[in-house]
């Protein structure tokens, strides 16, 4: 599903060069739930951003669904992300000016859907995360766990093949973290969605199919 070959990421300033990722090669199968662990600053999020086509590697190839992505234009990249990928962030990144339903509908706005379809799909996604009774609320009126569930609904509303989650339980207490993890596991199990999750939490990581460890930009496990 996702194939990374010799991915390198170098951050350059005038005086210094920092190697954030060093020759990472990774194959993630369709329907796999993979977690990435490692100390802070080891390149976990950078790797996830590169997989999500939010960032570009300095060297190496990425193939997603057998498609090479290095030659895509800004518009094609946007379309590709919209169709294939869903994102969950540690700090939710919901748009506070919009109600829950509008937040969840967001990925569908960049597709050819009617308002009716969008509402239906967004409500369905919110039902899956148990928040269909909060559609008229604004994000600021929700708890952290509820906000992350809205973010999950937003990530799954377009039925992407891959979900990339960057420390989805990082800002939550363990009970809420477990709830979120349950939702992700069910999503992977029932819908066959491929999930790549960055986490600091060993317990969460052990609930996934495979664990990849990074240290100083290199893969150690």
């Amino acid at each position, binding site marked *: 599903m996702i194939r990374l070959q010799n991915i390198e990421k170098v951050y350059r300033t005038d005086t210094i060069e920092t190697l954030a990722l060093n020759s990472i090669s990774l194959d993630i199968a369709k329907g796999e739930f993979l977690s990435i662990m490692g100390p802070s600053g080891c390149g976990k999020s950078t790797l996830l*951003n590169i997989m999500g086509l939010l*960032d570009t590697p300095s060297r190496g190839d990425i193939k997603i669904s057998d498609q090479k992505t290095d030659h895509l234009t800004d518009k094609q990249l946007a379309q590709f*992300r919209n169709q294939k990928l869903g994102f969950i962030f540690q700090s939710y990144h919901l748009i506070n000016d919009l109600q829950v339903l509008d937040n969840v509908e*967001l990925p569908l706005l960049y597709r050819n859907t009617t308002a009716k379809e969008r509402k239906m799909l967004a409500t369905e996604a919110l039902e899956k995360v148990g928040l269909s009774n909060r559609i008229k609320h604004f994000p600021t009126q929700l708890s952290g766990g509820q906000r992350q569930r809205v973010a999950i609904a937003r990530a799954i509303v377009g039925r992407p093949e891959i979900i990339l989650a960057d420390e989805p339980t990082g800002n939550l207490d363990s009970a809420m973290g477990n709830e979120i993890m349950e939702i992700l596991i069910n999503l992977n199990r029932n819908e066959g969605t491929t999930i790549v999750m960055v986490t600091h939490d060993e317990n969460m990581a052990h609930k996934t199919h495979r664990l990849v460890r990074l240290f100083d930009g290199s893969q150690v496990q």
Partner: protein
Amino acid sequence: MVRRFSKYISLKISIMLKNYFKIAIAVLRRRKFFTFISLFGISLTLTVLMVLTAFIEKVTNPVYPGDKNSRSLYIKRLTYTSKKGWINSGGSSFYFLTHYAGSLKTPVKMAIVSRNTSSNAYVNNKKIVIDIKYTNADLWNIANYQFIEGKSFTPDQINKADRVAVISERTRNEYFGDAVTVVGKYIEADNISYRITGVIKNVPEIEEVFYANMFLPYTVAKSDYRNKDFWGDYSAILLSPSEQMVTKMRTEYEQMVTRISIPDNMKKDFDTLHSDADTYFETFTRGFFGNADNVGYVRFLLFMSLFVLLFMLLPTVNLVNVNITRIMERSSEIGVRKAFGASSKTLVYQFITENIILTILGGIIGVILTIVILQVINSSGLIPDLDLNINPLVLLYSLLACLFFGLLSGVYPAWRMSRLNVVTALKAQ
């Protein structure tokens, strides 16, 4: 196929616009202070521009009673210049106008009116100031004064130097009280009694050529209208047979003026005599921006354009500034939208649309403010009998200018936003 494609495109646009509108309103509501500053800037600018143009329009294009302006030319000033650089300017004499302008072949009519002189009248120990204008009979034919009662004095009455008067509604009310028929009654000014022949609807004071509270035959004026000096207190309005003939009438006057020799008593100090037949608008531009040789039209346009540009530039720069700040605040939203499928171009459109919505809102508030302010000015009596209106064309241009500046103030911030890296944008929160 084409139909399906166009349906798809229009569906997509309507979804986007609805969403942009929702976001724009939400953002405006959340950032109340910024919204207020932006809207305040836009609406105030627009209001000042529209009130100003309403005023300029009234000054430069009187609808009442000068309804034949497109066929008229005005002779207001007579200027002597010398090679030494001396310039001396004043009104024309009755003699100059009848003798020279009166000899033109193109005009079908020529009204000659004096500058207003103030006179005091006392009613029940209350002082009333009456602005008096002396005129010939053609004023009543060229200007379309509305008579509330009675009619104008006749050429025969003028020739016989009858002490007759046409007064304004205001003077009638002040002198005789409201709702009284006054035709045939006498009104006293400067200790002379005049018999009233008619009462006209008030004319705003800024319409200098047409305005007076009391019109009297030129033959009863204290200064002798037969005096052969060129300088005097009078102006003339020339009426051409048609709009097309106005240019011919102007050329004829200009050529005639070049043939006039300077009176002997002026020859010692001056070499040239200037007098122009201008349109009503040109009398305004020449007065403020021109001189004897220059009608001042180009200078007026340049001045106005520069003024409008500078005036509109201020809220634009302010908007650019506010928008950049807003972008930085919304970088997380930008990151999220990009992550979930918005291209840079889509975001640029979104941001520009939001900005246009803001400027249109400002425009609407500006129009409402203008209507209110014009009403207040009209009813305040600050300038008596002034009736300022919104000019639909000015309104249209102002709204277009608003849109243009809205676009302008949105493009740069939107361009900066579109270049924002997704990862950086997401990290900003």
